[in-house]
């Protein structure tokens, strides 16, 4: 697959902000992996490392009033959306200062404040919800767009089909963001999908769809801006297939027997952070000192999030049954 030429670099401050956002996700998750080994974080932990350009570039193209629905591999989307690293880390520690009070953990990050509607640990489970958010915007006459993230694996689910059909049928303002990292857990795309051209499949619902180089944050942002503009203008749902790759195993329990080291090494040559940093260096807007300063800034933010999580408190056990129902008077 050859993609169109990468878009030109944006102004230096925006380029820096994209680089910083990707670097934050990378360093934050590297820290998460460490903390997992130390058993500070438990449950399932799915790292986004390698895919940072997708969340960063696409969310940069959204407005504050827009909504985001993601998957169980959603640390990248949460951070890019502006959910504070502190509350995301506290959530993974299970502390009540977490963005879901420690009720959700890594796979169920939520933050109503930034219109981040999860975190969903059911493959394709977020798609109907995202279309529902779009339906609400449509009914209320608001020009919000809902960005809905899911992996290539979700496209084998019935929920994918129903969501695409309803969104297209009712011309709803939703942007389907497929993160095609070539593997549904350990199952390769060609073993799971009868038609592996995922954007082509999306067009069968009558919506505009096209593949995007998911390792190039500038291409991701450019494509998303174009799609969002059209969705917001009443153009109905759009579908972007971000071709990307996860550098790490599926989760912390994956020996990676389904792909070769050579394949991983080949993809790492297109590390999205390195790609952008190199472009910025070539353009003379980033040097070693600048990169070091950025690394230091991000390291401090990550350390700060760990400190916040460590210092956080456990929800009192008396609150076990709180929030089962919204009205405590009728809670059993």
């Amino acid at each position, binding site marked *: 697959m050859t993609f169109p030429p990468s878009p030109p670099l944006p102004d230096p401050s925006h380029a820096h902000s994209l680089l910083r956002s990707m670097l934050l996700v990378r360093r934050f998750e590297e820290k998460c992996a460490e903390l997992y080994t130390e058993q500070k974080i438990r449950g399932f932990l799915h790292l986004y490392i390698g895919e940072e350009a997708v969340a960063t570039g696409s969310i940069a193209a959204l407005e504050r009033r827009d909504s985001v629905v993601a998957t169980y591999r959603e640390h990248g989307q949460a951070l890019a959306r502006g959910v504070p690293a502190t509350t995301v880390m506290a959530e993974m520690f299970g502390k009540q200062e977490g963005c*879901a009070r420690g009720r959700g953990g890594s796979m169920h990050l939520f933050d109503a404040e930034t219109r981040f509607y999860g975190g969903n640990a059911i493959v394709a*489970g977020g798609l109907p919800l995202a279309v529902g*958010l779009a339906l609400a915007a449509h009914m209320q006459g608001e020009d919000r767009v809902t960005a809905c993230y899911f992996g290539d694996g979700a496209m084998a689910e019935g929920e994918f089909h129903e969501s695409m059909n309803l969104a297209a049928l009712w011309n709803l303002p939703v942007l389907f963001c497929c993160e095609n990292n070539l593997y549904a857990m350990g199952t390769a795309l060609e073993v799971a999908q009868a038609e592996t051209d995922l954007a082509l499949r999306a067009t069968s619902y009558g919506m505009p769809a096209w593949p995007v180089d998911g390792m190039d944050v500038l291409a991701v942002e450019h494509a998303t801006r174009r799609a969002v503009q059209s969705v917001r203008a009443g153009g109905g749902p759009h579908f972007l297939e971000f071709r990307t790759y996860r550098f790490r195993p599926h989760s912390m329990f994956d020996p990676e027997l389904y792909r070769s080291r050579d394949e991983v090494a080949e993809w790492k040559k297109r590390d999205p952070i390195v790609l952008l940093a190199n472009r910025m260096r070539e353009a003379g807007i980033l040097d070693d000192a600048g990169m070091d300063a950025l690394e230091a800034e991000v390291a401090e933010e990550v350390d700060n999030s760990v400190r916040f999580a460590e210092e956080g408190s456990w929800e009192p056990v008396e609150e076990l049954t709180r929030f089962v129902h919204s009205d405590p008077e009728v809670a059993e």
Partner: protein
Amino acid sequence: MPVITYRDALNQALAEEMERDDSVFLMGEEVAEYDGAYKVSKGLLEQFGERRIVDSPISELGFAGLGVGAAMVGLRPVIEFMTFNFSILALDQVINAAAKMYYMTGGQIPVPIVFRGPTGAALQLSAQHSQACETWYVHSPGIKLVTPGTPADAKGLLKASIRDNDPVAFMEGELLYNLKGEVPDPDDGDFVIPLGVADVKREGSDVTIVTHGKMVNEALRAAATLEKDGIEAEIVDLRTLRPLDVEAILRSVHKTNRAVYLEEGWPYVGIGSQIVSIIQEEAFDYLDAPVVRVTQADVPMPYAKNLEKIAKPDAARVVEACNRVLYRN
């Protein structure tokens, strides 16, 4: 008091709540142009327009999930399942999204949604169209379950369900839509029945029949037969299965010392299992006999008329069960 059908009572409740609150909308298969498969939404399309009475394609998982998403941002969807049999396709969104959302988000995101439609057997519709679906729903914390057995309860409870801030499954009786009963005149004020309050449909002192939904009517027939034998049965209609009015069950058992649970569903881990468990834990010393359950036979519903008849719980079997706990056989 006006006498109207169960269907019209539901229709009134929908119309009144949609009139009162612009965030309420109805979505489902055939709810608009067709007036609903059971005509519950008759006339609502003309009254409220296609923005609020939404015909969906046959896509239960999809439109149930769209409803949950819309509820997450403040709308109040009423999702009609043509029957709850079809809602089994939608259970991922009901159980994994709607029921868990408020808890999982630490109280950030309530889901004020109603899933409604008929449950239980009709006449010779066989296995896939004749099953009581209560257990699928009531098992999960986070969801409320309402099962009205009369027109008045249908109206008052549907209005309360739509106003509730949590997901509510509202299960109607397919054979009840033409049932007539007294329902307060809309001009006499807002008629709302709070969730979680059982209703004694008949007072008696000899035996308690606890039941819900359509089976309330079967219990009343059984009580009429028993009365001829000099037995006074008390009928406790639970009306909502979550939250459950435990006090009402215990009050009656304390009085009669004998209890029968009647339900349309299967016996295996059915609603009755829960009720029997509560009675033996909370009122063991009051019991003069083991609690007996009357349920559908533990088989998929057969089509043949003779088999269907013996598979379904009915008044005669309730009379037998009452006699058993009274040691009258």
